[in-house]
């Protein structure tokens, strides 16, 4: 079966990729992660995925709907809920301090303390990630009260305002509730919240789907800026390949639970190795370029 062949081969990549990796320090390493959904019949959503995220890099994760992108992201952060079950593999977090943390070995209190502080996350449905009946302020401050118990309240407030300002939301909106904010603002609030503890890794699961292209652009720009400022690493998940090509350093292409190609953005665009990547790229018509393959089959010159 072709799937097996691909797996044994590992993700396709170019030698230049190796060059690119030199001089980077890893921050998160996933080895051989497999995740199943224990439904009837079981779904093998992620199959033996290995991935290394480096400090300060934006790693794009692309692939069509249902290929296991979100599942993998949840797995990296130990957020899988039943019926998902991380069947095998290892995830290691390489802390700034130099210690390595076995993420899968964490549990209870140690896991709780680890979350958000080291890895934070912006969810696919960020629209729904804010509790609708609790004010933005409380949800933001909760992060501080839990993870920075000693912090004076005043400072927390100041910090919260600063965070909102950074993502381009009026700090006065702190007392708002989710429904009082537009979709874009909610996304930004979530990004602010994810930034609160200055984590070393941020996982963003389709943070801009369902948004207007104009709004989306604004948010992307914001993320890029913040990454430049704080130097966190980002796993950016989307099925919008053109978008990824614009913003990411490296791109992993997922197909049916496996990473089939992992390459720098430029290489991937210019020299796609895997058949699937090639097709994927081909399905985006060019906006400004010539029509290429996308001649309207219906075009009838005669009538026009």
């Amino acid at each position, binding site marked *: 079966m072709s799937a097996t062949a691909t797996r044994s081969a590992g993700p396709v990549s170019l030698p230049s990729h190796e060059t690119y990796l030199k001089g980077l320090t890893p921050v998160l390493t996933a080895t051989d992660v497999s995740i199943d959904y224990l439904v009837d019949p079981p779904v093998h959503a992620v199959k033996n995925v290995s991935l290394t995220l480096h400090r300060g890099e934006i790693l794009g994760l692309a692939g069509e709907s249902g290929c296991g992108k979100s599942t993998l992201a949840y797995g990296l952060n130990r957020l899988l809920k039943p019926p998902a079950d991380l069947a095998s593999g290892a995830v290691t977090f390489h802390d700034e301090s130099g210690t390595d943390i076995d993420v899968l070995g964490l549990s209870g209190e140690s896991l709780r303390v680890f979350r*958000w502080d080291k890895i934070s996350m912006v*969810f696919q449905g960020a629209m729904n990630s804010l*509790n*609708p*009946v609790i004010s933005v302020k409380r949800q933001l401050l909760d992060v501080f009260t839990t993870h920075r118990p000693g912090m004076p309240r005043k400072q927390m407030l100041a910090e919260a305002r600063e965070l909102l300002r950074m993502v381009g939301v009026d700090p006065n909106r702190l007392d708002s509730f989710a429904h009082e904010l537009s979709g874009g603002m909610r996304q930004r609030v*979530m990004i602010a919240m994810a930034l609160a503890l200055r984590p070393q890794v941020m996982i963003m699961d389709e943070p801009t789907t369902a948004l207007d292209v104009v709004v989306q652009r604004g948010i992307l720009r914001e993320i890029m800026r913040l990454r430049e400022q704080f130097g966190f690493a980002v796993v950016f998940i989307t099925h919008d390949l053109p978008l990824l090509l614009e913003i990411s350093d490296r791109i992993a292409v997922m197909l049916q639970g496996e990473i089939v190609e992992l390459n720098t953005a430029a290489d991937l665009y210019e020299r796609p190795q895997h058949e699937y990547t090639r097709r994927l790229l081909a399905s985006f018509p060019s906006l400004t370029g010539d029509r290429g393959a996308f001649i309207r089959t219906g075009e009838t010159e005669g009538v026009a």
Partner: protein
Amino acid sequence: MKYYGRRVAFYAITLWAAVSLNFFIPRMLPGDPAQILIGKLARNGDVTPAVEQNVKLILGGSDEPLWNQYWAYLNNIVHGDLGISVSKYPEPVWDLIKDALPWTLCLVGAATIIAFAIGIVGGAWIGWKRGSAWDHVIPFTALLQSVPYFWLAILLVYFLGMKLGLAPISWGWDVQTYDHPEWSWASIVDVFQHAVLPALTIVLSAVGGWLVGMRNMMVSTLAEDYIVTAEAKGLRPRRVLWVYAVRNAALPSFAGFAVALAFVVSGSLVMEQVFSYPGIGKLMITAVSNADYALMQGVFLLTTVAVLVVNFLMDLIYGYIDPRTRHHG
């Protein structure tokens, strides 16, 4: 503004319709109150001619056209006059209601609140522990919920009251110690003791509904993205449970709870009958079995107004409970 205009119009129409129904329905009932009163008196031996004469005198004169009666009735209601009870002649209906209302409010109200509280907290817990052995509580609550109320009450009286002597079985307070309940510690304790069995009956049969509802809401809520987010934020589980999940999950129950509270004023007919509890439900039974229109209307009206008022209050305050409804339309 138009929206509120419509709401007010709605309340006005509902009130009018309910008030009118209250007037017409009892009048369609068969039965001559005088006959009923005399018949009842005769069950206990002789009825003196003087008494009979009195009965006829009291109950003789409603030969007026229904229409006139209706206007008089509306007029009286507007003036806060609920009329005079026939079965407890010449006691004004309002006085009867006034005496009964505190009992009903305290007992049924407290029981409703307790049932709700247990339901919400228990439901939250069972929902939180979804998939665990706690789920097996659900069928039992279903069973309790389906038990005929009076059957349960009678069993409780029989076992807890009679066999074990754990709690008093009649009345709202110990009439053998106090002519009226007093503001003394002992008397208050006594009133509480008398509320134990009736309240237990209500709580047992009502808790299941809240519990299951809350548990289901809880399970759905826990699958929401914002709960996952809260967990990802590394919040303590207790905080996730009580601050992030319970509040959202309990919201839908509040509207139902408000309505339940409103219906508290109509008392609990069956329970009050079983325990000779001096509440509104008892009045209703008295009214129906004596064709006491005025009393019946009084109780109906009270309930209707209570429900409307609670609905209105809910309209006003729901925004504060649920910020989502606060601003947008």
